[in-house]
Structures are given as structure tokens and as C-alpha cells.
């Protein structure tokens, strides 16, 4: 049994079936890329897994537990973490404060009442070193550059240290170097964390992914290695056939 399993997952918006009978299984420690043309239902699938959107049918099984009907904060406590498509750091809080919020291993009110200082050693120090924000500890997140904001968000994910990381287009707007560094980080997380990454940039996908899942119109279209997927005629027709739209899409 996989670490994350989706069984016949469905959701409708009005008459539109954004996700339509999706089945998916991720092994423990696997990094899976989720591809598909714009509007295929990739973001919605992540929403269904993390609890932002309620499923209208099917189930989400995580670590053997049915989380389909849990509130989002409960799923987060089980170890499901999410990076959104739009950068969503807390702009009014400083870098260190953002990370302290992300350090959420003890999310209870009573536990929080007893914490008065942010420990900079241990995990915090490691994470800051990885993303290179040591010199910006007390800068308000709203004043960071676009790239730094992306790093902060990844740092928050690392700080949260969730077992399953859901990422929606993590490299959007990044320079080539930044993208490569992101790929390094993902590769280092492989094995210890299960990851599901929505990504458009095929060169990036080739670097990080072993297995790729392609969605179209809410359904699973194809699954396999990058090479297999790129050869698949169904995929070429639905998505890759037109490289330009695929690359331009966001």
C-alpha cells in the first residue's frame, strides 16, 4: 500500500468535473511530478489532498488513514504540507517569525503559550543555511525580493518538516540558477519525504522526477517515466504536442 492513495477522487464546481474519478498511488519517499495542460485539475487535486477543497466523492488515504473528511489543520497535523501557486508567506511578519509559525510540531494553544523565544539553533539553523536567508532574519517578508520570498516559502516547508509535501509550480518565476538550486533541495528530500510536485518546466521535471503522472480534464491520462511519457501519443496530443503552449502555461 502506498504512502498516499487517491481512490476514485472527484469534485465538481457547478457542472464542471474538475477532478473526475482520479486514482493515484505514491510510494513512501517518492518524488512524483504531476503534469497536464492548463485547467486539467492539478491544483484542484492538491487542494483535495490538503483539505482546501472538500471532495464530492472518493477518498484520500494518507499513511493508511482515511483523511477525506478531516479539516485542513488536522491533515496538516498528520503530516500533509502544501506550497501554494501564489507565494503565500506572511508579509507582515519577519523571516524568523515566518519560520517560527512554520515550526508547527506542537500546534496546540497551550504549547504555544509557553514559547517565548525562537530557537535559532538546530533545524532552524540548517534550514536558514540551505536557503541562505541568515542575513535577513529580521527583515519583513513583505520587503524580500521575489526570489527570496520563494526561498522563504521553501524554508517554511522544510521547517514544517511534513511527511508529504505538495507543491504547486515551485519554480515559477525563478532564474535558471534558482531552479537548479531548488532541484538540489528536492533531490536531498527524496527518500525521507514523499513529494507531489506540479510543474510545467520540462527541463526541471527531467532533473527531478522518476515517475510522472499526466492529467487531462480531471482524469488520469498517462503514467510512467519521463521518457515514456514524452513518447506517449495520447500525451503528445493533449499536451506535449504543442511545446509552446506547454512552456508558456502557468
Amino acid at each position, binding site marked *: 500500500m502506498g504512502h498516499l492513495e487517491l481512490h476514485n477522487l472527484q469534485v465538481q464546481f457547478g457542472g464542471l468535473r474538475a477532478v473526475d474519478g482520479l486514482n493515484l498511488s505514491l510510494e513512501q519517499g517518492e518524488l512524483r511530478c504531476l503534469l497536464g495542460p492548463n485547467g486539467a485539475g492539478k491544483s484542484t487535486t492538491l487542494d483535495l489532498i490538503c483539505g482546501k477543497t472538500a471532495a464530492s466523492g472518493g477518498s484520500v488515504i494518507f499513511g493508511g488513514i482515511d483523511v477525506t473528511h478531516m479539516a*485542513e*489543520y488536522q491533515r496538516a497535523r498528520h503530516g500533509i504540507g502544501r506550497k501554494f501557486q501564489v507565494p503565500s508567506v*506572511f508579509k507582515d511578519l519577519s523571516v524568523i517569525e515566518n519560520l517560527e509559525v*512554520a515550526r*508547527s510540531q506542537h500546534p496546540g*494553544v497551550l504549547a504555544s503559550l509557553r514559547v517565548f523565544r525562537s530557537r*535559532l539553533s538546530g533545524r532552524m539553523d540548517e534550514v536558514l543555511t540551505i536557503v541562505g536567508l541568515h542575513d535577513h532574519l529580521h527583515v519583513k517578508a513583505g520587503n524580500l525580493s521575489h526570489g527570496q520570498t520563494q526561498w522563504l516559502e521553501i524554508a517554511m516547508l522544510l521547517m514544517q518538516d511534513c511527511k508529504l509535501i505538495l507543491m504547486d509550480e515551485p519554480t515559477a518565476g525563478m532564474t535558471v540558477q534558482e531552479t537548479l538550486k531548488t532541484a538540489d533541495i528536492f533531490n536531498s528530500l527524496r527518500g525521507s519525504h514523499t513529494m507531489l510536485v506540479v510543474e510545467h518546466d520540462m527541463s526541471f521535471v527531467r532533473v527531478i522526477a522518476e515517475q510522472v503522472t499526466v492529467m487531462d480534464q480531471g482524469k488520469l491520462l498517462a503514467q510512467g517515466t519521463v521518457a515514456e511519457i514524452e513518447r506517449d501519443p495520447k500525451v503528445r496530443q493533449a499536451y506535449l504536442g504543442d511545446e509552446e503552449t506547454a512552456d508558456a502555461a502557468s
Partner: protein
Amino acid sequence: MNTTFKTDIIGYGLFAALILFVVPWAFAFDGFELNTFARYLTLGMVAMALALSWGYAGVLNLGQAATFGLGSYVMAMHLKLRASASSYNGMPDFMGWTNVEVLPWFWEPFHSLTFTLVAGLALPALVAWLMAVFMFRGRVTGVFVAIITLAFLVALQLVFISEQRYTGGQNGLTGLAPLELFGWRADAYSTSFYYMVAGCLITALALGLAVVRSKVGLILRAIREDANRVRFFGYDVARYETLAFCVSAALAGWAGMLYVLVLEFASPTYMSVPFSLGIVIWCAVGGRESLVAAALGAVVVNMLEGRLSSIFVEGWFLFLGILFIVVVLVMPRGLYGLFSDAVQRLQTVSPRDRGGKVATKATPLSATPAVKEEN
């Protein structure tokens, strides 16, 4: 940021010194003057309570006077019973006038001082908790919270006015006995009484600061900015909001109890809409980002009222309204905002502190919510 932590502690120390030493000295230890100032301090306490939920959690409670009023009636019921010991059935005089034969059951426990002191904090907190469960579990936010709390205030005041047999109705509870605490008799016009009130405010401020200085304060600020994002980290947002709302209510109840001691009567006007909106204005003038500033705002505005209302008489509410508009337009962060901007500017001028590597192993969680134009 370390500096906001320092600002908070220094501000708190200065405020404590001000009300403990400077004010009594400035009024030459005159009991009557100090009684007036004690009233300002209790109003400072309720403004501080509002800053906790409005400034930090972003929960605008327009009905803060409801919990204040509950606290005041709790205290007044105890004092009324003490004053009525020798009357028919030990009942308050107004009950006799409305043909009540025996003391209602819910008045009985207020014979006990301990019960009264606990209830003055717990009853407002309990009422707030019920509202919080309803509002925050249902994810009610923003202006709807303001409307619900305001509606609750109006309903509560109506009940207290209409149930005259049990509450004294429009007249409230008057002819109260003085409070006796550990053999100390509270004389509202004594210096010792003033110090008791000042001590309560300083203690309440310390409690409030402990809450907002802890990680709870940080999570509340994060919730204020993006509640959904906070949920995806595993925090139960409703619980945090509920905590802020209930602590705020308990502190307001405490202030209400003191208010009755200062004025020596309880009145349904303590639960009126204008009074409740007044709390919002004091808080905005001082600056809702800081508990100390909010308390100071209440003191300053009420001192102004004391001076100006004798000149304008009827015009005071108009003045207060204009003051509020000016504050919202010109200094949305209140006096505290002006002050902290000035400090910030001074710091950018001095190159020290800049770019210095942080060598410490820990940094205090800062507790100053940043600017937000809305609300």
C-alpha cells in the same frame, strides 16, 4: 525584532511608573482627584482588553461593553447583597418594590466574595466562549463578527433593563456597600484604593503582554494576515481566536468589577452602544497594536473628556466622532504608530545594528502587529 521587545518593556515600565508614582504625586495624593483617575485606569483596562482581540487577532468586538457590563453587575450584586443584609428576607430594596417575595436563586451565590471575584472573570469569559464557539467554529470573520457582537450587546442591555425585578432595570444597582477584602475596606476616595486599581491594571497588562509575547501572539498575527495559510500548518485557528476573545472578555470583566468600585453603582449604561463604541475609539487613538498604548489612549481621551465636556456639554460625542475620523484618516495606527515610526526613523539613521550577524542562540518573538489599513 529585538527593538519592539525593548519598546514594549520600556513602555510598560514607564506606564507603571507613571500611574504608580507620577499621577499620585501630581494630584498631591488627593482622594477625589485620584478617584477620577482610577476611573480612567479601569477604562484603560477595557481598552487594553479590546486591543488584545482587535489589534492582535483582528477580531473587532464592538460589544466589548457587554463583558465589561457583566463584570460590573457581578460585583454590584455582591455589594448590593451586603448592603441589604438587614432588609426584608435579605433582599435588595428594588425587589420589594416589584413584589418579589424571595431572593432569586441566581442571586444567592453572590453572598460569597470568592464566588463573586471568580465569577467576575469567569462569567464574561464563559459568555465570550459560547459566542466564540459559534463564530469561530463557523469561520465567521471581519465585519460579521462586529455585527454579531454588537447585536449581542444590544440584546444583553435590553434584558438587563427589562428584567427590572432582578436587575434594578434602568436604575441599575445603587446603594451598594463598600467592598471588604482581607479586612481592607475599599473607600473609593482613598489613596490605597487608587493603588489597588493601578495595581490591577499593571497586573492585567502583564498578563496580556505574556499572552501576546508568547507564540500565541505570533500565531494570532499570522491568523490576522492569512487564516487559511495558518491552518495548513496544523494550527486550529478557531482555538487561537477563542483564546484571545475569552482572555479579552475576562480582562474586560475585571475592569467592570473595578468600575463599580470606583463609581459605587452599576448601570445598564455600562452596556450601551455609545460606551462600547467609545472603547473602540480609545483603542484606536492609543494604537491597537500595543496593549500599553491602548490603555494610554483610553486615559488620554477620557482626561480630555473630563476637561472638554464641561465646556461643550452636549458636543462631546460629536467631538469624539470627529476625533475617530481624524485618527482613522491621519494616523490609522494611533499614537503608537506615530511613536514607532519615529523610533524606526531614528534607527535607520544610526548605522549601528545594521548588517550585524546575529550571534545569539535565540531571539524574542516580537509582538507588535504590523500596519494594516483595513478594519
